[in-house]
């Protein structure tokens, strides 16, 4: 099958002209000048504004909703409640447990209950106040351990496993025997708190249902295709009568991966009112929409030999899922499945359980499911190094998994540059000369990680391509790329331009990209699991290699030479053996159009068959894995307990860096987000279910003053299956920042921080405990009193 062909890692015309260079982005100047159009920037004639009435209760039965007074308010053009959109949906076909508006009960504070469309926002807000909802409050679950042990009342009636959302238990090899043979065993509890995406653009959707029966939805989504499918499913419209367009997107980080209430509500209200309807979430609503990082309570037990070789890892994880399933089934697997690199685990067992609680639902956030276990394990590995009196980088080196191998849980590893990542951060941070010599309260810590470049597991199982593109080439000399992929700021449209220009030998400005419009573009599964560069890149090369022979043949015939002599380079065509032969690529395209009629091609990509031969073995299987290592430098104020992090060195193996500037941007953005999660951010609710700080002031994301100096060091282990050898760069580089900070704090002041976030209070408590330990040790040793 063509879409599974390997395209090789070599430059198509002898040497790279665009790949590997710091070219500008296709949309950079449009964004810089304010010309780029985001969803809320669009207004349509006759447009109505919608608002949602949200639940003040964390868990309650809805006894009655009275909208009579609201309907009577002048300017109100439509009101809907759960009964108007009763069809359940959810991103995963097996766990569809959400409705656009609550039906019969609410499961978290802020859950949408009713929606109003009115001539302006003020009228819509006024109407919300006139809607009367009678609730019967139910017991509120905010502690995941309570949900583990108690099902009455259930959060989801008819859920087969009560308040347990998903349970996974997988075991590889004789873990207990391996641990009992180990020379050193460390066992501890770790806690990763909730954090959220906080993209600066709030979610927004605009729907227009036309008289011809076609629904058009502009939405700030990172997965237009799944929104398209979900709309068809919930609205009962055939998919071919729905068009989903993702305008310019103001940040996502996983937070715009689910289909959301506003997309269904605007669509339905437009169908009922006959007018376009827009809904823009307030910042507070974005916090209640959440889908952020799952809090995880983790117990890890790891054994190693005297010379630092791992013998086995045993993990037990309780995951606080919030009120709905979202991606939770995958999260529960990822929490275990993605830990088996970059170190070679001889044996491994994990038991992970996701429970429902009455909180905004968790979902995928940058480094989905694997950032939390990575934190726990990398801190535990440091503890083993400490017990063995071994350098933390050395213990990691001794356990690195090789390239071209298979992990203990059956994941195929192709390229692997993790050893070089460790070398780079060791050297750049001055590890050998500076560690232990930075002065009081200062330290260095290291951590490493591995992440997927796309997943071979589509959200809904199907044998169709996971990525597809279409090229249109015409006599103007322009190639238009139609790509279903969602550019969410990471630069996937820019990467498409670089790859097509490289492969067809054109200048960059000869390639323009149209993306994420379901009417215009072939289906792509969207921006998640770090799949776009890898999968869409391969699909683009596939399409180009159908056009290229036509261009070459048309020129070769004109010059009456063999096609192997022809070179397309940056928009100019030449002959390797006759310098008098030259024409522009545009002239060549005209010749090809004359010879072959209208020019165009499609290209596609599907992953090879991957994964372990057991239930769940394909979850976490990726065609390639990226690798990362960080060294973090910290300074701990022992009076206030405040940690500052002045420097992070980030080495990341992204395969071939198609544009090192964009790769560095992803690495720096990832590390920033990790540092933020470690030191500043906390998404949490009070026992009532009310959010503790649903604003960008209270949910503290770092400013330019809080952010460390971030040093990006690119490692390129060319992957045999990536486009020209490329892999992902957008999620992997987040993982090690958090454990590297914890490990640096240990180096600085001798305390192990196993609970996130690393607040001054936690630091002071640990410092006091440490001081007591030290004085007890001193007393035992008969030292000075």
């Amino acid at each position, binding site marked *: 099958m063509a879409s599974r062909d390997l395209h090789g890692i070599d430059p198509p015309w002898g040497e790279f002209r665009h790949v590997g260079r710091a070219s500008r982005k296709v949309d950079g100047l449009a964004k810089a000048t304010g010309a780029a159009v985001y969803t809320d920037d669009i207004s349509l004639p006759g447009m109505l504004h919608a608002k949602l009435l949200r639940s003040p209760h964390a868990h309650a039965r809805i006894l009655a909703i009275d909208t009579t007074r609201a309907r009577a308010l002048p300017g109100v053009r439509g009101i809907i409640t759960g009964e108007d959109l009763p069809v359940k949906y959810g991103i995963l076909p097996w766990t569809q447990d959400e409705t656009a508006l609550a039906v019969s009960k609410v499961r978290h504070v802020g859950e949408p209950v009713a929606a109003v469309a009115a001539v302006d926002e003020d009228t819509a807000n006024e109407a919300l106040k006139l809607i009367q909802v009678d609730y019967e409050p139910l017991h509120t679950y905010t502690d995941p351990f309570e949900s583990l042990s108690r099902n009455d009342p259930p959060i989801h009636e008819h859920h087969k496993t009560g308040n347990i959302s998903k349970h996974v238990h997988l075991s590889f090899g004789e873990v207990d025997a391996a641990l009992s043979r180990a020379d050193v065993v460390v066992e501890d509890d770790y806690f990763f708190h909730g954090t959220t995406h906080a993209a600066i653009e709030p979610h927004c959707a605009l729907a227009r249902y036309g008289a011809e029966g076609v629904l058009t939805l502009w939405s700030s989504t990172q997965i237009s295709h799944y929104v398209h499918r979900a709309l068809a499913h919930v609205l009962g419209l055939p998919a071919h009568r729905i068009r989903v367009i993702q305008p310019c997107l103001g940040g996502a980080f996983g937070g715009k991966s689910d289909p959301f209430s506003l997309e269904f509500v605007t669509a339905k209200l437009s169908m009922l009112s006959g007018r376009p309807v827009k809904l823009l979430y307030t910042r507070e609503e974005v916090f209640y929409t959440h889908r952020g990082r799952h809090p995880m309570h983790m117990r890890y037990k790891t054994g190693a030999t005297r010379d630092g070789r791992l013998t086995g890892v045993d993990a037990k994880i309780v995951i606080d899922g919030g009120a709905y399933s979202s991606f939770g089934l995958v999260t529960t697997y990822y929490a275990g499945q993605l830990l088996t690199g970059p170190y070679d685990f001889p044996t491994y067992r994990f038991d992970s359980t996701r429970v429902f609680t009455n909180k905004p639902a968790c979902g995928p956030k940058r480094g989905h499911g694997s950032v939390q276990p990575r934190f726990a394990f990398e801190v535990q590995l440091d503890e083993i190094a400490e017990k063995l009196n071994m350098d933390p980088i050395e213990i990691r080196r001794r356990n690195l998994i090789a390239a071209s191998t298979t992990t203990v849980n059956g994941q195929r590893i192709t390229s692997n540059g993790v050893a070089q990542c460790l070398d780079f951060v060791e050297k750049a941070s001055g590890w050998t000369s500076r560690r232990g010599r930075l002065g009081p309260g200062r330290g260095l810590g290291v951590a490493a990680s591995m992440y997927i470049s796309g997943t071979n597991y589509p959200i809904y199982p199907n044998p169709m391509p996971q990525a597809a593109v279409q090229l249109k080439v015409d006599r103007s000399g322009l190639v238009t790329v139609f790509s279903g992929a969602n550019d969410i700021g990471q630069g996937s449209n820019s990467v498409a331009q670089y790859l097509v220009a490289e492969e067809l030998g054109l200048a960059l400005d000869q390639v323009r990209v149209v993306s994420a419009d379901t009417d215009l573009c072939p289906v792509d599964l969207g921006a998640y699991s770090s799949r776009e560069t890898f999968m869409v890149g391969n699909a683009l090369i596939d399409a180009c290699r159908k056009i290229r022979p036509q261009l070459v043949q048309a020129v070769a015939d004109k010059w009456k030479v063999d096609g192997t002599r022809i070179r397309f380079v940056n928009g100019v065509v030449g002959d390797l053996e006759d310098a008098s032969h030259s024409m522009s690529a545009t002239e060549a395209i005209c010749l090809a159009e004359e010879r072959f009629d209208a020019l165009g091609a499609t290209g596609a990509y599907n992953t090879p068959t991957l994964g372990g031969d057991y239930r769940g073995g394909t979850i976490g299987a990726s065609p390639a894995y990226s690798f990362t290592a960080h060294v973090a430098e910290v300074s701990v104020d022992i009076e206030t307990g405040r940690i500052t992090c002045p420097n992070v060195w980030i080495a990341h193996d992204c395969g071939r860096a198609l544009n090192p500037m964009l790769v560095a941007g992803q690495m*720096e953005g990832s590390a920033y987000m990790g540092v933020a999660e470690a030191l500043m951010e906390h998404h949490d609710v009070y026992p009532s279910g009310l959010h503790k700080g649903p604003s960008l002031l209270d949910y503290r994301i770092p400013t330019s003053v809080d952010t460390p100096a971030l040093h990006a060091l690119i490692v390129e282990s060319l992957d045999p299956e990536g486009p020209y050898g490329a892999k992902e760069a957008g999620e992997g580089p987040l993982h090690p920042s958090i454990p590297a900070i914890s490990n640096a704090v240990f180096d600085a002041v001798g305390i192990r921080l196993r609970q996130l976030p690393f607040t001054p209070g936690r630091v002071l408590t640990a410092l006091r405990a440490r001081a007591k330990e030290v004085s007890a040790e001193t007393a035992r040793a008969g030292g000075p009193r």
Partner: protein
Amino acid sequence: MHLTVNGDVQDVDAPDHWTLLEVLRYRLGLTGSKQGCDKGDCGACTVLVNGNPMISCLVLAREAEGRAITTIEGLMPAHLGAGGVGADPVQDAFDRCGALQCGFCQSGTILSARALLWETPNPSETEIRNALAGNLCRCTGYTQILQAVLLAAARSRGVDPAPRSWETPPPPKETP
């Protein structure tokens, strides 16, 4: 009310409680100013009022009457009007350095940077970090933003900025 925006005097009819941001976006069609929080926390709506950065979601439109407002849309025309080529040099430097990922916060950030460079043409990294502390960015980790401001400042003085983190050092010269 009458607002002076990007050099044009505009006659606007809007409810009294509308903020400057709302009027710019939803009355004047100047959607380059973004709303990220609507309560002064994120800085995405930053505009220049008499040349100084101001958070337009915290100002009623009426309060801005009689003052010169510059939005992101105003920079390139002003640059061209002064005989320049293309986008304003600060806008161009943001693009050149990869500082525009999702781009949503950057119109505000670019305007803050523009005001800084008018005031302090050769800022230190600390001065840049301080000047941009009111403009939250969730994508970049600020590194490429700092590089962009340094690049714009260096270019205005006609000097080369220091190499950026992702720029590969040139291969060592062969010794005979």
